[in-house]
């Protein structure tokens, strides 16, 4: 199942790398942007199944971004990729609402597994919601 993935990172090379990995290894459609500020707008207008974001970006950092996104879409899973790999930072972003946190440098398999699991989780949540809605309707 092809999903819509939005990748945001201030580093264009990183965007290229992630786009290449996802594009080559999966069927998912990747949209990239190096401007974190336009992400909420993109989320509003587009139909994305997953957001992959860098933690430290000019203009808006990952944690702020999570908060902003959650205002728009409560259910979209967010993968945070960070260069500040520590337990503390991982804890913080997950508490703020991220689905997972991957530290740089990463192996491409890490990214791919995490994407799969996030999408699966997103799918399951969606189905659960629909089932709940159906039950309520009945």
């Amino acid at each position, binding site marked *: 199942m092809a999903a819509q993935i939005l990748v945001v990172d201030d580093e264009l090379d*990183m965007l290229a*790398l*992630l786009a290449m990995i996802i594009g080559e290894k999966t069927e998912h459609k990747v949209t990239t942007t190096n401007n974190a500020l336009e992400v909420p707008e993109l989320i509003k207008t587009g139909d994305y199944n997953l957001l992959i974001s860098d933690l430290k970006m000019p203009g808006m950092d990952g944690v702020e971004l999570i908060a902003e996104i959650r205002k728009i879409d409560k259910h979209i899973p967010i993968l945070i990729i960070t*260069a500040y*790999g*520590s337990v503390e930072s991982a*804890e913080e972003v997950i508490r703020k609402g991220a689905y997972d946190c991957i*530290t740089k*440098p990463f*192996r491409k398999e890490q990214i791919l597994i995490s994407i799969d699991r996030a999408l699966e989780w997103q799918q399951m949540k969606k189905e659960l919601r629909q089932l709940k809605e159906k039950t309520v309707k009945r």
Partner: protein
Amino acid sequence: MKKEKTYFSEKYYNIRRTIILAGILVMVLLVVAFCLSMFSAGQMKEIISEDFNRQQLVLAKYAANRMENSLDFIKRELSLLNLSPSIQYLEKVSWASRMNTTLSAVKDNGVLEIRFIDHKGRTAYIVDERGMSHVIQGRFADTDYYKWASLKKNKNRIYAGEITRENEEYTGQLVMCLAIATYEQSVDEAYPVATGNLSGVLFFTIDVTRLVENAVKSIKSGKTGYAWVIDNKGMFLYHPHREFIGEDAFNVRAMRKSKISFSQINMIQKEKMLEGKEGTGRYTSGWHGGIETEMKKLIAYAPIHPRTHSQFFWSVAVVAPLSEVEDAVHSVFIRQFYIQGSIFLAIILGGVYIISFERRWSKTLEAEVMKKTQDLKNSLEELKKSEEQYKTLVESAEDLIFTVDEEGNILSMNRCTANFFRDFPDDLIGKTFRDLFSEESAELQLRIIRKVFNTEKNVNVKYPVEVGNREYWFSSNFAPLKDEEGKVFAVLGISRDITKGKKLEEEQMYNTEKLASLGNLSAGVAHELNNPVALILGFSDILLEKVEPDSKSHEIVKTIERQALNCKRIVESILSYARHPEAIEYSADVNENIEKVISVVKNILVTEKITLEKRLTKDLPKVRGDSGHLQQVFMNFVTNAFSAMKEGGVLTVSTNLNSAGNKVEILFKDTGHGIKREYRNKIFEAFFTTKKVGEGTGLGLSVSYGIINKYNGDISFETVAEEEDMERKGTTFKVSLPVASLDSEHQTDQAQRLAPRI
């Protein structure tokens, strides 16, 4: 010193002279007391002698009285008999019995016989001492007493004859006769009319010795004193020495003892006794009782004057040896003498003892003084020496040493102080801190000085001072100086110029800060590096899939990937080195973690030909720290040891609790090549390594140091490089970690419970 000695000896001699004077005074007083007692004893002897003699006089007078009475009695009896008609008329039947009656009455008074001579002087009618009466015829008219009685004027008078030894009937005996003229004047039945005619002469013949003896024999003066009697011619009528009786008292003594002068007694006899006087006296004699020796005698004498017959008198003397009195006095005196002597002796001995004790004490004192003087001398010398030493010490000290009063006036200082303030032209003594330091610096120090004055306690302080527009740092100790009464009179200051050190310290601080910021910076850099490393690795990964696996390009990309991984490792090391202390501390079991590390490297031990010796002390307390961190550190030491023993060797790992019981010590001892001298200061520095490029990052020890330091532990090492000693080469690293407190152990338990949830 000499003066003092003279003073002491003068004082000593003064004391000694006083003691000797006192001793002499006491002796003189004692002698005077002795003489006085002797004198009083003499006086007492005199008084008692006089008293004794007075008593003797009483005795003499008593004896005289008795004799007078005795004589009076005889005369009375004579007169009485003369009145008897039996005698007057010479009655044949009764004269003898009448005479016997009288004789028996006066016999005891020494009357030997009674005789009556008729008026013609031819017939004598006698009753003798045996009581026999007989009549003898003779020519009695020529006798003195007959002639005397014939005279009419002698009627009723009594005639006393001479005392003689020449009596016809009583030869050898001292006899005397008392006679009375007998007239026919009484009447009785046979002769109713008295004729008044001379009838004859009646007389008694008397044994004088017996008469006197009766009266005086019983006289005893004192113990041995006796009485003797002389008549008016100086003849002994009675004397206990019988041979004297009847002898001339003026000659008989000299005859017995010619060597002794009896002038005293002769004078008494002549001038007193024969003059009929009574009195007392003393004289020299040659005997007394059975004792034959020259002696003084006391004499008391009294005259015998018969009342009825005053024409003659005798004299009685009572004598006793003076020694009798003196002996009595003497014994008292001797007793007194002994008592006085004892007291005297006791005083003398006491004095001698006290003086000798005092002398001994003086000598001890003198010796003590000498010793003390010597000690004082020695201690003075020592003091001088020590003072000299201290002076040298103070003068050559590198510190500023000075004394100041409460106002900050400098009282004294050492050379260093003078040198420090050498820009000041004048002498510093008497100057105040205000003259030497800036206003602010002077006030600061004066405050400290006043504090020392008030609290009397040392003050140790570091502070900046300004001297002539230049700033210095002083490390000073201000100590109170107390006088003998314990009052602070000055403050001793010892100041060290620590300006250089202070600058160094500041520099160090700056370096530390620089390092810290560098650490932060490197952490930031490391994180930033993660991005490019991630990209390199990511693209390499993708590229590796795109190139031919055995192609040259594949190899190149592989190398790129490998080096990117190196970069990754370096970044990780830098991050763990620079990482800030984490909030949570765990406790860990040292032995358990060592075992884990060893189990990992077990295979390497075999391949690298390394023998492992474990000496782990059992039941060690847990230490502060995270097990993962500790394993990382231990692994680092183990791998370092392996690197040092490329040709094999022995690695000894031991653990133990330190002596204080508050730290666990872990030792890693290898027999490797050791650490070269020039590297020893650098081994904990980040990026320092002796390993080839690619083999080590140079972060192992610095990271370990960071970890151990974080847990308040310590790392130290001892090393002998192979260049120094091939035999003893090797390095020992010692890690010591504080024992975990109960709190931190509790935290560990909690952390372990929480762990699965993360």
